[in-house]
């Protein structure tokens, strides 16, 4: 089974080489997992600029953003990627949740509407990618439909997926729980906010998406 899967991976990799196309890597996950925080850190480290705004209010990112030609060096090898920061995926969006953060009703309804469009955009981007970094909040239950759907999509397409178990700076985080939920995929425990293990993440990125 491993062989077939690996063959599938290698074919997409070969195709990529022959087309001389940069790998497109999507950063996916539920709202608030820390996708944009991670994207900003990657861009700051390798390009000097930033991807987008970060907030503790969910659905801060409501349009996918692409940064082309990000070169990451790790252990003497370099990979150049297009990185897409996507809106958080969800199956439900209730404008009342935004009002709880102090937004007025009109603002909350607009945010909810834009958030639904953002989710659709993120789903559509799945067809355009060569790999995914799936960001999960390691303080939360990993067995969610969003995670199951993203992983299922990548497995069906035989595309590489790297799990970033984020927020390990928080005391109640448990990357081990995520690993036991999805043991078949490589996982790096990180803090996108404080930078813990980011070098390890770059090494895995170079290995899996290079």
């Amino acid at each position, binding site marked *: *089974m491993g062989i*077939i899967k690996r063959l599938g991976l290698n074919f997409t990799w070969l195709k990529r080489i022959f087309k001389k196309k940069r790998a497109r890597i999507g950063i996916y996950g539920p709202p608030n997992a820390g996708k944009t925080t991670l994207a900003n850190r990657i861009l700051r480290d390798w390009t000097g600029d930033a991807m987008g705004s970060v907030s503790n209010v969910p659905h801060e990112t409501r349009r996918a953003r692409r940064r082309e030609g990000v070169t990451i060096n790790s252990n003497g090898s370099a990979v150049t990627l297009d990185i897409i920061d996507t809106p958080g*995926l*969800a*199956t*439900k*969006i*209730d*404008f009342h949740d935004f009002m709880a953060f102090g937004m007025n009703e009109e603002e909350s*309804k607009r945010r*909810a509407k834009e958030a*639904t*469009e953002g*989710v*659709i955009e993120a*789903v*559509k981007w*799945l067809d355009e990618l060569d790999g995914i970094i799936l960001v999960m909040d390691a303080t939360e*239950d990993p*067995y*969610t*439909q969003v995670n*199951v*759907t993203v*992983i*299922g*999509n990548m*497995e*069906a397409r035989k595309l590489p997926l790297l799990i970033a178990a984020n927020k390990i700076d928080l005391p109640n985080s448990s990357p081990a729980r995520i690993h*036991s*939920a*999805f043991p078949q995929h490589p996982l790096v425990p990180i803090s996108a906010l404080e930078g813990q293990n980011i070098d390890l993440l770059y090494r895995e990125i170079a290995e899996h998406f290079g």
Partner: protein
Amino acid sequence: MKGIQLDLISEDKLDGMTSMEKVRLILDEVRNGKILVLEKGLTPSEQNKLIELTMTEIAPDDFSGIEIESYPVKQNDNFLNKLFGKNTLKTRLTVIGPAAQLKTIKKDRDLISALVSTP
């Protein structure tokens, strides 16, 4: 008797439907307040369609989306399927309901525990 309708949909019925028919059926039933249990879940691409369609139907004070829970897709270990490059992913039991009425309490590898409330 008042209560919430629970529909358990068999694998055979699901197999006889196209992806769009499945997704449409699920959303129509859930919007009518039903909780659905699918014997065999949705493929990843059907899950995508369901999420997209759900998003287009969300409206303030009317519909805030769905709660959906399933077990992670399994690799199908059938040797012939793999040899001939057939889809080796096996979808599994899935529960779907209106987000306003169905709330997942706990979920792990072997157990989905949910709370159902009346509208």
